[in-house]
């Protein structure tokens, strides 16, 4: 049951600069989406952290179950051949 006395929770994603992807930076409470955007701006971009903000209702996020960590992620551990370590990355590529 959601606590009606609390504003709903939103997750905040910030794009640090053009060309980069949005990164999860934290969460906040707000009464509605536009307030969430204002709060995200006020809380998470005070030190010029970004040029773009996404806010997402936390309840819209579907998360994996920590109890299933073994079955979800263990099988990949011994398949190191999937790492593309044999590519040579050109110097010009800065943000891979």
């Amino acid at each position, binding site marked *: 049951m959601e606590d009606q006395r609390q504003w709903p929770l939103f997750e905040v994603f910030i794009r640090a600069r053009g060309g980069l992807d949005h990164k999860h930076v934290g969460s906040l*409470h707000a009464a509605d989406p536009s307030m969430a955007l*204002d709060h995200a701006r006020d809380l998470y971009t*005070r030190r010029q952290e970004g040029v773009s903000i996404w806010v997402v209702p936390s309840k819209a996020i579907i998360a994996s179950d920590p109890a299933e960590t073994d079955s979800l992620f263990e099988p990949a551990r011994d398949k190191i051949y999937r790492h593309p370590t044999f590519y040579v990355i050109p110097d010009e590529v800065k943000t891979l």
Partner: protein
Amino acid sequence: MKGAAETDAQALFRYVLRLGDLSLVLGQRLGEWVGHSPALEEDLGLANIALDLIGQARLLLSYAGEIEGRGRDEDQLAYLREQGAYFNAILAEQPNGDFGQTLVRQVLIDAFQLELYERMTDSMDARLAAIAAKSVKEVRYHLRYSSGWLVRLGDGTPESHQRVQTSLELLWPYTVELFAEDDVDRAMVDRGIAPRLSEVRAAWVERIEAILAEATLKRPADRPHAWHGKRGQHSEHLGYILAEMQYLQRAYPGARW
């Protein structure tokens, strides 16, 4: 008889102090919310706006000090003037009241600063044009924040609606002073330094009416108001603000950190 240049400088000095003091006093008022806001997020939101306003005040008071030419810097002007030497409109010094009352005051002043600064970016005074260009971006966000809240509260519960409508009735009469024109204002218009206040008012009214309509609030009737803050005659509230704001500099002259 004074020289024309000296009179010009005095009018500009007074005008820049009016702008600077409006931001300074409002910023100080908003700062009182720090640690007391209804939510952590609003604490930061109001503090951000307060800091923007103090930043504007610093630029304006520094400039005022240079115009005056008596060696006073931003700190001396902010912290060491007597009450009668502050020239903000008294709307800025009105008490915070509840959160809604603070936001009503904020919307009224944000919209004023927005319409004023937008028209001042091409001022004949290059310094004021630059300060306006910087400030207009900040103020646009302030109004977005404050009007968003006014709409939520006005169009919210019966209690929130009633509270902000009452605050609006309380504060509306003070808005007259923002647009009351005197010799200083007219001198600024004549020299192409500032926009005509009647023009600012027309745009302000239009903007405010749109916000009030969305907030389902009623615009109070205009009443004549004897305005005095811009002439240095203040309500009782400014004295208390200054006592708190100036305490440190008065108790420890020249203190820095």
